[in-house]
């Protein structure tokens, strides 16, 4: 993989997050599937001219990942995916982070809702 490959994957350390939001109740149900991953794979994405680059992202099955999306357009875009259960507005010229839950194998399409004719992409979990 060449060093400038846009699909380049980096390991970054997620900050220690408060994981105790409503948990006592849920944990009491014995379904404590708390993801204890301290290292989450990060994938960089760029939006330019209302297109995602790369438009195809590969993630490993069953591992949480995160997308850092930089919007290089002047106007806002909404990263939207019902398959990934995600909607996030990314203001023009800004970056945003989208966390992906551990995914089962398959294709998970996403789009930029404000420019759905050009801004299309897919996460492939394999």
């Amino acid at each position: 993989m060449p060093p400038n490959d846009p699909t380049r994957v980096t390991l970054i350390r997620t900050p220690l997050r408060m994981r105790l939001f409503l948990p006592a109740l849920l944990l009491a149900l014995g379904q404590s599937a708390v993801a204890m991953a301290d290292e989450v794979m990060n994938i960089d994405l760029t939006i330019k001219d209302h297109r995602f680059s790369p438009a195809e992202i590969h993630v490993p099955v069953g591992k949480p990942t995160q997308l850092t999306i930089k919007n290089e357009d002047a106007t806002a875009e909404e990263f939207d995916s019902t398959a990934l259960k995600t909607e996030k507005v990314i203001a023009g010229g800004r970056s945003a982070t989208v966390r992906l839950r551990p995914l089962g194998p398959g294709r998970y399409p996403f789009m930029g809702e404000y420019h759905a004719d050009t801004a299309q992409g897919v996460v492939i979990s394999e």
Partner: protein
Amino acid sequence: MLATLLIVFREVIEAGLIIGIVLAATRGVPRRSLWVAYGVIAGVAGACLVAAFAGQLSSLFEGSGQELFNASILLLAVAMLTWHNVWMASHGRAMAQEMRQVGADVMAGKRPLGALSIVCGVAVLREGSEVVLFLYGIAASGGTSAAGMIAGGALGVLAGAGASALMYLGLLTIPTRHLFSVTSGLITVLAAGLAAQAIAFIQQAGYLEVLTSTIWNSSWLLSDESLTGRLLHTLIGYTATPNGAQLLVYLLTIAVIVALMRYVRSPHARAHKTAAAN
């Protein structure tokens, strides 16, 4: 232009359905239009603010500001809807006992109109900020297509409002004595759906990373992207791929609202109230 119309229509109808339910639930209440209008105006103003500060909002809480903001206002709406239903269960019953009928007078009490005003405001704020950002983007990019797209946006607002009005008028055809049960039911599932959405946002923010696996996938039957799917998403919180936490919170919300409504109607609660009154 058509794409613009569809996007705006979709957002407007999502807010409009909620306002339609609120209007149906407050049928016959004096000054309810004023309260709803306050909510809508505040919602539009808030939507513009949120749109203007979208970048800053997003960078709060380690990049999860937007998700936590969405979750917070959704939970606020859930609380207000619960309060309204419980209030109606309590007072509607007491008044009906004295009058031996659930008539228009029952509707005219000092209901928590502020609560419903907040619900309308939240609905408009949520969907409105997306519309504002979208239309602003079109206007800012200029070009020859901008005029057509702005026209599409305006038509989208009108079409969304029209469709919402139709639903409201449909609800009004329900006889008054059933209207209370129907609107209570609608508000209960609406609140449950909003609570489930709030949980999805909290999970998206990286908190509450439990029960995240999908329970079922009914997208072959009704996909989230279809118009029916979207309408049901707003009305009853339908999603083709609910996860465990969403389903749990959905059912829990319904259970809590139903239990509270039963409690305030129960002899125990009434005796308590009588004792307090004496």
